[in-house]
C-alpha cells in the first residue's frame, strides 16, 4: 500500500512541474517587456528596475528565470498590481472562503444526490426518477449566474429573507456560523444545483449496474431478504465509484465559484481572479492559476489513493 502511494506521488511530480512551467510560460507570453508583468508600468520610475531584473533573474537564461520566478511566488515576493500586497497573501486570505463554499456545496449535493439516486435505482423510470431527471436536466442547463440571480430575485428582493452579498455582515470579523450561515445559503444552493445532477445520475447508473450483477441474484436465490440484499451487498459496491466523483468535481466547483462570487460579492478566489483579469494584474492571475492547478492535482492524487484504500480490487502491489 505504501508502495502504491509512493508510486502515485512520484507520478504526480512531473505534472506539478508541468503546471509550474505552464504558469511560467503564461508570463513569458505577455507581449512586451516582461518587466511590465512584474512591476506595474505606472510605478516603474520609482522602482529600481535593475534590482527587480536581478531579483527575478530576467538577465539570466530561461531555466534560472523559471527558478527565480517560482521562488518569488512562494516567498511572497510577487506583489499584486491592484492589491499592493504579496499575491500569496491574497490567496491565503481568499482561499478559505472559496473552500468553505465549495466543500459545503459538494457535500450537500453528494448526500442529496446519492440518497436520491439510490432510491431512484430501486424503481427506475418511476415517478421519482422522472422528476429527478427533469431537475437534473435543469441543473446542468442553467447558467450559474441565472440560478444565482433567480435566487437573489425571489429570496432577497421579493421576500427579504437572506442577504445577497458578502460572506458576513458588513464590518464584522471572524468565522462564527451565526454570522456566515445566512450569507452562505444562496451561493451554496446555486453551486449545489449544478452539481446534484452529476451525483444523482452517477449513483443511479452505478446502483443499477450493481443490481444487475450475478452476485445479487445469488444472494436473492440464497434467500436473503431483499432489504439485506440491498443494504449489505448492493449498496457497498454501488457507492464505491462515488468516491471518485467527489474528487473529480472539485475543478467544477472552483470554476463555478468564479461567476458565483461575482454575483454574490463574496471575497473568495473566484472573485480575486476576476478582479485580477479585469485589471490586467498579471502576478495575481499567475499565482491564482498556479495555486488552483496545484490544488486540483493534489485532490486528484488524494482521490486515487482513497479509491485504492476503499476498493480492495485495486492492485496495490
Amino acid at each position: 500500500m505504501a508502495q502504491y502511494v509512493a508510486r502515485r506521488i512520484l507520478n504526480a511530480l512531473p505534472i506539478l512541474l508541468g503546471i509550474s512551467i505552464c504558469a511560467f510560460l503564461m508570463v513569458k507570453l505577455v507581449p512586451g517587456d516582461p518587466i511590465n508583468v512584474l512591476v506595474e508600468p505606472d510605478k516603474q520610475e520609482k522602482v529600481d528596475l535593475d534590482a527587480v531584473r536581478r531579483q527575478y533573474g530576467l538577465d539570466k537564461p530561461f531555466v534560472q528565470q523559471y527558478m527565480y520566478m517560482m521562488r518569488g511566488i512562494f516567498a511572497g515576493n510577487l506583489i499584486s498590481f491592484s492589491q499592493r500586497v504579496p499575491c500569496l497573501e491574497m490567496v491565503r486570505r481568499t482561499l478559505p472562503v472559496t473552500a468553505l463554499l465549495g466543500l459545503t456545496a459538494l457535500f450537500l449535493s453528494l448526500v442529496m444526490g446519492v440518497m436520491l439516486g439510490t432510491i431512484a435505482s430501486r424503481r427506475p423510470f418511476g415517478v421519482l426518477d422522472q422528476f429527478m431527471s427533469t431537475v437534473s436536466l435543469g441543473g446542468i442547463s442553467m447558467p450559474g449566474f441565472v440560478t444565482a440571480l433567480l435566487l437573489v430575485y425571489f429570496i432577497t428582493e421579493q421576500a427579504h429573507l437572506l442577504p445577497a452579498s458578502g460572506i458576513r455582515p458588513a464590518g464584522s470579523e471572524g468565522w462564527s456560523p451565526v454570522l456566515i450561515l445566512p450569507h452562505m445559503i444562496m451561493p451554496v444552493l446555486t453551486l449545489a444545483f449544478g452539481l446534484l445532477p452529476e451525483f444523482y445520475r452517477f449513483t443511479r447508473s452505478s446502483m443499477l449496474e450493481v443490481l444487475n450483477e450475478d452476485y445479487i441474484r445469488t444472494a436473492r436465490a440464497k434467500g436473503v431478504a431483499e432489504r439485506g440484499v440491498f443494504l449489505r451487498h448492493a449498496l457497498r459496491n454501488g457507492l464505491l465509484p462515488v468516491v471518485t466523483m467527489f474528487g473529480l468535481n472539485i475543478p467544477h466547483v472552483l470554476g463555478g465559484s468564479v461567476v458565483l462570487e461575482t454575483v454574490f460579492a463574496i471575497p473568495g478566489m473566484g472573485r480575486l481572479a476576476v478582479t485580477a483579469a479585469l485589471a490586467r494584474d498579471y502576478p495575481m492571475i499567475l499565482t491564482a492559476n498556479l495555486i488552483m492547478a496545484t490544488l486540483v492535482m493534489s485532490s486528484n492524487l488524494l482521490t486515487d489513493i482513497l479509491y485504492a484504500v476503499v476498493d480492495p480490487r485495486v492492485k496495490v502491489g
Partner: protein
Amino acid sequence: MEAEPDELEISGRRPFWRRFGRSRAAVVGLCVMTLLVIAAVLAPVLAPYPPAQTDLANRLQSPSTKHLFGTDQLGRDLLSRVLYAARVSLSVALVAVMLRVAIGVMVGAIAGYAGGMVDNVLMRVTDIWLSFPTFFLMLGVVTILGRSIPVLVLVIGVTAWPVTARVVRGEYLSWKEREMVLAARALGASGWRIIFIHILPNVMGSILVISTMQVAWAILAEAGLSFIGLGVQPPMASLGSMAADGREYLRTAPWITLMPGAFVFTCVMAINLIGDALRDALDPKMDVRG
C-alpha cells in the same frame, strides 16, 4: 429519455438515426434548437425594432404586446436585442467548438494510433492541461491576450480540448487492433491514411456526441465570461453581457436579465436533450443508464 434497441440491426448509421428518432425528448430538443438557431440567424428579419434604437419615453417596460420581451433601461426592445445577442453568442460557441474538436481529434487520433512514447507524452500534456480549472485558465489567457472576439473564441476553444482528445484516443486505441486496420496496413496504407480514411469515419459517432455536449458547454462558458465582463465587449452585446447589464434593475425590471438567461437556458437544455439521445443511440446495448 431512453431509446429502445433495434432487434435486428445493432450498429450502423440507419439504425442509429432510427433509435435517435424514437426518443421524444430528442425530437423536441432538435425542433427547439432549430427554431432558436433560425431565430438567431434571421435576427435582422425577425427583430421588430432595431436593437440599438433607444426610446427613453418607454424605458423599463414589462413584457407587453408592443414589446414582447419588454424594454431595458434605455428603452431598447429586448426581443430584438436578445435575437442579435444570440447571434453573437451562438457563433462564438460554434466556432470555438469547431476549433476544440479539430485540435482534440488530431491529438487524440495521433496519441491513440501511434501509441508508445508519443501517446505517453501527449497524455501527460493532457493531464497537466486538465489540472487547471477551466474558468481560471480562461481568465488567465484573457488577461494575457486581452479581450476581443478572436481571443474569446480561442480561449473557449483551446481550454478544454483534452476532453475530446481523451475520448478520441480511447476509440483509436480500440480500433487500431481491428482486422480492417490490419488489412489496410498489409495492403501498404500509410499511417495518416489509416487514421483519416479508415478509422475516422467510424469514430464520427462518438465525436458527434462529444461535440454536442461541448457546444452546450461553450455557450455556458461564453455567457459566463461575458457576464463577468471578460467576453464580448461593448458596443457588441452577447447574451451574457446583456444579463450583466440588467443586474442593477433586477428588482424593478427582472426581465432585462432573465430574458437573455432564459434564452441561454433553453438553448443549452435543447442541446443536452439532443446529446443525451445521441449518446443512447450510439450505444446499441439495452442501456438502463440515466
